């Protein structure tokens, strides 16, 4: 790849530092069950795009527990920190998706106005956990396990799992801890090993990526960043077109009623809140634009007519 490694590294640092201001509002229903005379004020946090909501669950819990001191153990009220869940525009937010992915996918797709969506207003619920729609992710240990398994999956695609398999347990720990503690250098000291090449290749065997479209399960396929036959680098456009075509084909064979729109021009393609040029080589994006879990999380938002 003929790019300057120094400039590219700066991009990873900028991405690492990107934040989203979030305003947490208690749901109307739970407000009525508040113990104190005043209802909770909106609660503001500035969060890393690549973190997960369970990472700050302690902060949220502590804030609201002061308002529900006596009610928390009262099961008739059904208010419980164990039942905490977050919602945006009637959509329960999945705990295990990075915050930036949730923001890009939902605010772009759902907001009725095209104006700025900041701070991101999220409703906090303390009751009526939507069992059918959300997996409970109560604590930091669970999200750490999720992060590690996602990393292993990424390495399975890139290097047949060889690099992460050869790492010490303390290196795994360092990745998570530095992510959690916002330590860029400590993170990349280990992560750069996961960005190296194996098997005499000058690229990753397959690219770890997921494509998110509103109201659909994510799309994940096997995709090589280099076309050996034609001696060329595959681009973001190639990856998305391939994935959409393949997914539409699968739907046709399964006799699904609503077939996916495979016309790329109908979508805005968003990674980390920006729209990278479609001719960007996917190998480069994988190395510099992946999330800390080593996946490219790509949001496809249908353009409004």
């Amino acid at each position, binding site marked *: 790849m003929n790019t300057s490694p120094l400039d590219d590294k700066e991009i990873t640092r900028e991405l690492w530092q990107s934040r989203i201001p979030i305003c947490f509002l208690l749901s109307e229903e739970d407000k009525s069950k508040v113990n104190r005379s005043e209802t909770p004020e909106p609660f503001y946090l500035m969060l890393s795009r690549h973190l997960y909501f369970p990472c700050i669950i302690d902060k949220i819990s502590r804030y609201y527990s002061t308002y529900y001191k006596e009610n928390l153990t009262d099961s008739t009220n059904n208010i419980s920190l164990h039942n905490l869940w977050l919602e945006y525009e009637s959509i329960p937010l999945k705990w295990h998706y990075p915050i930036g992915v949730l923001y890009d996918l939902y605010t772009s797709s759902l907001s009725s106005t095209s104006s700025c969506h900041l701070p991101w207003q999220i409703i906090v619920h303390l009751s009526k956990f939507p069992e059918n729609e959300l997996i409970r992710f109560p604590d930091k240990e669970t999200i750490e*396990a999720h992060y590690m398994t996602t990393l292993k999956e990424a390495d399975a695609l890139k290097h047949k799992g060889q690099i992460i398999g050869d790492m010490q347990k303390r290196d795994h720990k360092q990745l998570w801890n530095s992510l959690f503690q916002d330590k860029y250098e400590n993170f990349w000291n280990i992560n750069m090993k996961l960005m190296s090449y194996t098997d005499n290749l000058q690229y990753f065997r397959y690219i770890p990526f997921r494509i998110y479209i509103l109201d659909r399960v*994510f799309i*994940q396929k096997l995709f090589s960043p280099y076309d050996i036959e034609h001696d060329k680098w595959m681009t973001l456009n190639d990856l998305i077109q391939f994935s959409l075509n393949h997914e539409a084909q*699968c739907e046709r064979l399964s*006799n699904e009623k609503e077939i996916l729109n495979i016309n790329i021009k109908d979508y805005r393609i968003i990674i980390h809140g920006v729209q990278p040029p479609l001719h960007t080589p996917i190998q480069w994006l994988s190395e510099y634009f992946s999330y800390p879990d080593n996946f490219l999380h790509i949001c496809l938002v249908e353009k409004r007519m």
Partner: protein
Amino acid sequence: MSTVEGDENESLGNASNSAVTNEETSSNTTRSGPLNDSEGGAKVVFLLKAAGGAPILKKKKWALPRSKTMGHIVEFLKKYMQLDSQQQQQLFLYVNQSFAPALDTTIGSVNDCFSSEGTLVLHYSLTQAWG
């Protein structure tokens, strides 16, 4: 790795031979015709292998529509193996004997990326066998 013996064996055996469940009918239909090339096809065929001391299933080959999630498989297996829901016994599904996909991942997606020579192997365990 322990095999299921005695009474347990019987109950699992009965479960697999008894009245068909949704999952089993799909497996029967694939047996009658040529084995599906699961990629792009309607059903994904996968093998379930025991790990971490989990009971071995009599029925190892299964088939499911692409859109079924890993969570669906976990819940089904918990009932099938009659795991104790009161004690909140957990079941973990692993791919490549190394990672556990998030429960909302579809079997179609896992198959597209990790099947080997047309076969997808999933390991199930009662403990976190691979972290």
